[in-house]
């Protein structure tokens, strides 16, 4: 086993790539620096955590089925929703997207042999695994897990009010996973900036890769703030600082003296400066997945490619200027600024929606499971987006803030992205990763159960919120008409749970009775479908010429190049209009369609 240096020699040949003779079995897994293995480890870990957090959600739902629920105690309930939210947000959705799928797919999509820093990549995974274990360790310590919600509002999160070990574990777990995310972000950006294949200009990168680049930047903006805030919180808890803490600074009248103590609002500012970009760190990768899937199963190029890229950038940019829309009811923030910025995010999001619809328009839609999941994502995110616009208006937020309306809203967006689009990506890339297909019929059963269950779970929560049911309550009184809605929501949750059992069956079937996938089972567009399934060590033995953002399609369908304008003719050689550094779109008017793939050694 050796360091592998990949020389590309003139004539397009790759020199011999050293075969792995390294350790096998467990040791191989521990020492790997291959982005594909790391990506897969990430995915398996995060999906396992998703199942755990889903189980916790079922506990929440069972407790709320009846008023004065007695399924679990108040304390247990508080731990349950804290861990559900924390695992879903910090350990599932993000790591699944940028540690799992992006890690696996981005180097393939830009034609790179690996991530730019393979060992750093491995370290990211180990930190993430350590952080996940640390957070789960809370279940085993005296006093239980953290119980201050996934947002850990100070001063509730200071040692006076939540003194347990579980809280400390929670903080340290987030420090670990925070570094893991930062390293992955750096790695993705460096890979995209430095390891693209010749001809893969920035404006020929697949949208998924673009979105991961932007996500990487957002990670670098957001996560350091969280880590710093957590370190300060830890100091407050154990080293007697008063950054957020209010202990011992009451006046004789029993009122907290603002000058003598820490600031509760500071935590909220810091947390949400991380927290809102985090929401888009969770959303953008999944937008990217949907943007890969719609064109492939519509058999058309993505509509408005350039608009998509700029929409992604504007969403990311705006998302860093809206943090205080989670603080409208604190009475301490500049309402119009944050309201306008938040409302404006609807514009680029709308552009994305219309581009997705435009991609399907006049296509030949093939309803495979990934496509269905993506359409499920569209519907879910549409409603989540519309209610998001409502929440961006402070007077409306004053009413629905921290009620079940908000719970329903953020599940529609988070579930829509992380689950619908996330598992769309899972079904879509599974053949590439394992070289075998998932069963499409079982996939459709999964989809239908999930889709119905999703609406049955979360629509009642909107109604409950408007009826004034606060979130994070372990019990609610009788006589308010809340029970029937809660029962519906619980039934929906169990449908979702069932649908994920079907997924397990599906994976088992594909394992037991493999159906070989071939290199490109979907007739897909992007580079990763050019190589074998699963790809060889260091990914490619040869590459096609890259003349548009769909090199594999161009290679397979030289007679169907992208048509840039509605009435325009097909571009003679499938050139995208976007020059990189090299100048305008005027060069290279070769006539023979797309250059053939360059053969391997």
């Amino acid at each position, binding site marked *: 086993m050796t*360091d592998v240096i990949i020389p590309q020699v003139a004539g397009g040949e790759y020199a011999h790539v050293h075969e792995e003779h390294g350790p096998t079995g467990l040791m191989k897994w521990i*020492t790997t620096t291959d982005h594909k293995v790391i990506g897969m480890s990430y995915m398996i870990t995060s999906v396992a955590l998703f199942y755990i957090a889903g189980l916790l959600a079922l506990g929440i739902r069972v407790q709320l089925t009846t008023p004065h629920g007695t399924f679990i105690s108040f304390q247990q309930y508080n731990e349950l929703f804290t861990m559900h939210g924390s695992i879903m947000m910090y350990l599932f959705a993000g790591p699944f997207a940028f540690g799992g799928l992006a890690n696996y797919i981005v180097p393939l999509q830009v034609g790179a042999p690996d991530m730019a820093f393979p060992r750093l990549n491995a370290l990211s995974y180990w930190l993430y695994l350590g952080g996940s274990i640390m957070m789960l360790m809370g279940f085993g310590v005296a006093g239980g897990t953290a119980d201050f919600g996934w947002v850990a509002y100070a001063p509730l999160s200071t040692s006076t009010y939540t003194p347990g070990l579980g809280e400390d574990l929670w903080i340290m777990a987030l420090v670990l996973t925070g570094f893991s995310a930062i390293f992955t972000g750096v790695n993705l950006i460096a890979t995209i900036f430095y*390891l693209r294949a010749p001809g893969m200009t920035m404006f020929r990168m697949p949208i998924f890769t673009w979105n991961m680049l932007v996500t990487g930047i957002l990670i670098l903006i957001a996560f350091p703030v969280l880590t710093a805030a957590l370190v300060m919180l830890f100091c407050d808890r154990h080293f007697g600082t008063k950054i957020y803490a209010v202990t011992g600074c009451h006046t004789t009248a029993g009122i907290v003296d603002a000058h003598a103590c820490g600031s509760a609002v500071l935590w909220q500012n810091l947390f949400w400066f991380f927290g809102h970009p985090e929401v888009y760190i969770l959303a953008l990768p999944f937008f990217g997945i949907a943007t890969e899937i719609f064109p492939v199963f519509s058999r058309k190029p993505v509509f408005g490619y350039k608009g998509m890229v700029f929409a992604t950038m504007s969403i990311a940019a705006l998302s860093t*200027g809206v943090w205080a829309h989670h603080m409208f009811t604190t009475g301490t923030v500049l309402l119009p600024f944050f309201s306008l910025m938040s409302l404006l995010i609807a514009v680029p999001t709308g552009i994305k929606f219309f581009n997705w619809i435009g991609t399907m328009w006049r296509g030949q839609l093939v309803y495979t499971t990934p496509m269905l999941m993506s359409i499920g994502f569209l519907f879910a995110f549409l409603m989540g987006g519309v209610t998001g616009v409502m929440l961006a208006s402070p007077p409306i937020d004053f009413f629905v803030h921290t009620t079940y309306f908000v719970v329903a809203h953020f599940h529609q967006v988070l579930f829509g992205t992380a689950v619908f689009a996330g598992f769309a990506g899972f079904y879509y890339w599974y053949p590439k990763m394992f070289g075998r297909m998932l069963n499409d019929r079982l996939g459709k059963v999964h989809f239908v159960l999930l889709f119905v269950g999703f609406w049955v779970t979360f629509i009642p929560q909107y109604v409950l919120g408007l009826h004034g049911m606060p979130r994070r309550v372990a019990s609610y009184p009788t006589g308010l008409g809340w029970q029937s809605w809660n029962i519906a929501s619980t039934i929906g949750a169990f449908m979702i749970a069932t649908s994920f059992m079907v997924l397990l069956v599906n994976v088992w079937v594909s394992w037991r009775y493999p159906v070989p996938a071939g290199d490109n089972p979907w007739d897909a567009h992007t580079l990763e479908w050019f190589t074998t399934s699963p790809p060889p060590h260091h990914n490619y033995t040869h590459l096609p010429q890259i003349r548009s953002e769909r090199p594999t399609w161009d290679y397979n369908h030289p007679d169907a190049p992208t048509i840039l304008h509605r009435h325009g003719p097909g571009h003679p050689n499938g050139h995208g209009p976007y020059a990189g550094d090299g100048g305008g779109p005027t*060069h290279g008017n070769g006539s023979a369609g797309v250059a053939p793939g360059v053969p391997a050694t």
Partner: protein
Amino acid sequence: MKVESAFLLGIATFFGVISISYWFTSYEDGGTMMLVGATALGVLPGCYYYFWHRRFRGSKYFFWGKTDRVVGTRPEDRDDARIEDGAGVISAFPGSSVWPFVFGSGAFVFLLAFVFGVWLAAVGISLIVTALVGVTAESRRGGRH
């Protein structure tokens, strides 16, 4: 590298504008600090890429000065580049390494020290130091053979 630098400098410009307008509408220092930090995040690498973009084109600094070597643009930045244009060594990719795991375990144990007791820190730090030494040696040797 032009698009890369434009991308990063765009971030810098956006956050520059937002920092200024946020400061003068709110005079709130926490948020302003974070926005200024984000501006710096765009400025630093953005200038770096712009510098190299100009350097490749033959300028010595950003706009001025001349070098005698004009590299032109990287193949991945050229619309008409052929795969063969990328011929040559891409990079060295370590085949496999146990040190990330050791480092990760060290960090895990080290942070646990804050929760369960300082003695764990000794274990954590020794693992981390071992990993750092190990990974350095590995790189100098050019990987484990």
